[in-house]
């Protein structure tokens, strides 16, 4: 437990002082010490390499190549993850599907965070009527069961990836907005905000440069969790046949196709299911580690 009140002197007899650690360096140190988070981060990187690097070898063409003479074959040298109902290579499909699933997760999370932060920041900073209106809107969105909303919306706009990303963002920004609002409500009362105003800082700068960086930790944590949630949601609605439409593969719609073969051809669901599990689990661990690492108030190095 060393607090960094003074720069650390090098013990090696060097005359110069060691440069003090920046916030980023300190956060990185704390993150590195979080074992599960580090493991999660490594697995996540491997999954990205798997999906995006593997996609260079196992192209979309190969993933969609049907060979009806080789239907429902178990794992073998030619098809390490087996083949599906129309003889497509499951390995190639998990790779191509991973690209889509991960992209949906990331993009939906980014969009969701943007909407949530703007709504939450405006509501929290201005307060009063603006806050009441925005929060009632948020609550109205929250009380609609989100799976139901997702299915109806997906049905309306069809199974394009772009629309699915937009729908996910529109149905899940409320949680972020609430967190950000709560952060802003308390942070705006700080004396440093008054000090910033007293040197003539405009409102937009106060919101985005002074308050937002202070609420970064919960935002980053909800962003990581949002990626996980979006990947899961994609799996839900694809399983129900409302998500991204075949032949484009996603981990979710691969599960859908395997429903009738749970016992007879378990490789159909084991591999995409395992990938979803690994992704969501490691994202959650990373989120956990980030929460500890990014808290500017925890000064353990």
């Amino acid at each position, binding site marked *: 437990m060393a607090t960094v009140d003074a720069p650390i002197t090098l013990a090696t007899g060097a005359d110069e002082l060691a440069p003090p650690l920046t916030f980023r360096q300190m956060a990185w140190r704390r993150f590195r010490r979080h074992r599960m988070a580090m493991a999660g981060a490594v697995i996540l990187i491997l999954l990205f390499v798997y999906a995006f690097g593997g996609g260079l070898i196992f192209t979309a063409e190969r993933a969609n190549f049907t060979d009806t003479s080789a239907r429902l074959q178990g794992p073998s040298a030619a098809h390490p993850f087996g083949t599906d109902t129309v003889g497509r290579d499951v390995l190639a499909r998990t790779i191509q599907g991973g690209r889509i699933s991960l992209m949906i997760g990331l993009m939906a999370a980014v969009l969701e965070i943007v909407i949530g932060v703007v709504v939450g920041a405006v509501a929290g900073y201005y307060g009063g009527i603006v806050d009441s209106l925005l929060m009632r809107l948020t609550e109205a969105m929250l009380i609609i069961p989100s799976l139901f909303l997702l299915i109806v919306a997906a049905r309306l706009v069809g199974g394009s990836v772009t629309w699915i990303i937009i729908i996910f963002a529109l149905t899940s920004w409320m949680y972020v907005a609430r967190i950000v609002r709560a952060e802003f409500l308390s942070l705006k009362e*700080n*004396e440093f905000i008054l000090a910033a105003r007293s040197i*003539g800082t405009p409102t937009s700068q106060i919101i985005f440069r002074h308050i937002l960086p202070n609420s970064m930790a919960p935002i980053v944590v909800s962003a990581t969790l949002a990626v996980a949630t979006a990947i899961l949601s994609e799996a839900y609605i694809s399983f129900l046949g409302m998500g991204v439409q075949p032949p484009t593969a996603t981990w979710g719609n691969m599960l859908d196709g395997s429903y009738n073969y749970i016992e007879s051809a378990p490789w159909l669901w084991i591999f995409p299911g395992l990938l979803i599990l690994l992704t969501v689990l490691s994202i959650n661990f990373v989120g956990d580690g980030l929460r500890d690492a990014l808290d500017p*108030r925890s000064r353990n190095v």
Partner: protein
Amino acid sequence: MTASSSRPTAAPRPLLLDIRNLQVRFHTPEGTVYAVNDISYKVHEGEVIAVVGESGCGKSVSMMAVLGLIPRPPGEIAGGEALFMGRDLLRLPEDDMQSIRGGDIAMVFQDPMTSLNPVLSVRRQMTESLRRHANMSPEQARDRAIELLELVGIPDAARRLGDYPHQFSGGMRQRVMIAMMLACNPSLLIADEPTTALDVTIQAQIVELVTRMREKLGMALIWITHDLGVVAGLAERVIVMYAGMIVEEADVDSLFDQPRHPYTLALLGALPRIDRRRDSRLNSIPGAPPNLLVEPRGCPFAPRCEYVIDHCRVERPPLMAVSPTQWSACWVMAGGEGNYELGIRN
């Protein structure tokens, strides 16, 4: 402490800030708080004014009102004007206020531990106002920031610039704050109890620093405090506030030699003295400040005053001149015939 002889003689200096009949109220669920009631005073260029009074007497609120930093609602400027270089700050649009705050008028706050943003480096916070008000390039702003940090006595300024607030001690942070506020050569610096959160030796250093900076840069200074010891060493003129009103205004020597308001007298009496017996109790003023939820009637100090007369409870005393440099709002100590001839304010 600076000797009183080093202060500039009271030659007529141009008027900088003219506060007239300022009234601030807060509308709370419990009712309306009458925070500042009809205060008027003038600040001349290069002048050092101390505003003293106990907590909640409206010292800070009146200054924040002048800078447009009162949240509205629940705050309300119920009346008055604050003329700064001929412009009424109370009615200036927010955009114009933003160029005045941190430019012409700067304010240092009480607690240096909380008035710097913990997640931004000192460099980012310092260069912010330089780039905005002085239109400097990032490099110019950086050089100026280093210069300012050196000026306020931060050793190894160039290297400390990239540090974060938690890497500075309390006194250092207050120095950084002062450097930030001096960045654009303000003509008026408002210091809102800048030493209360610091320990005594550091307090003296900060007082000394501000005095030195003021002499160097020639700005006017309003020092809000409840520490009369600081006032004696620093101020030319003192304004004593009580319950949102000015009860006495005087040059510093008159105030300490011949206080003309019972509240000032009581404050001075409550000051611990080094020549008093060690086992004697510290004097205190009996009672508590009035509830500002009630619209004031009569003299607000009457319930705690030793000299109270019936008239005090009926009519609020205006600020009456007792000498050309001293004004008091007391029927007993300043209410004589001669004083009326000298003048009444408010």
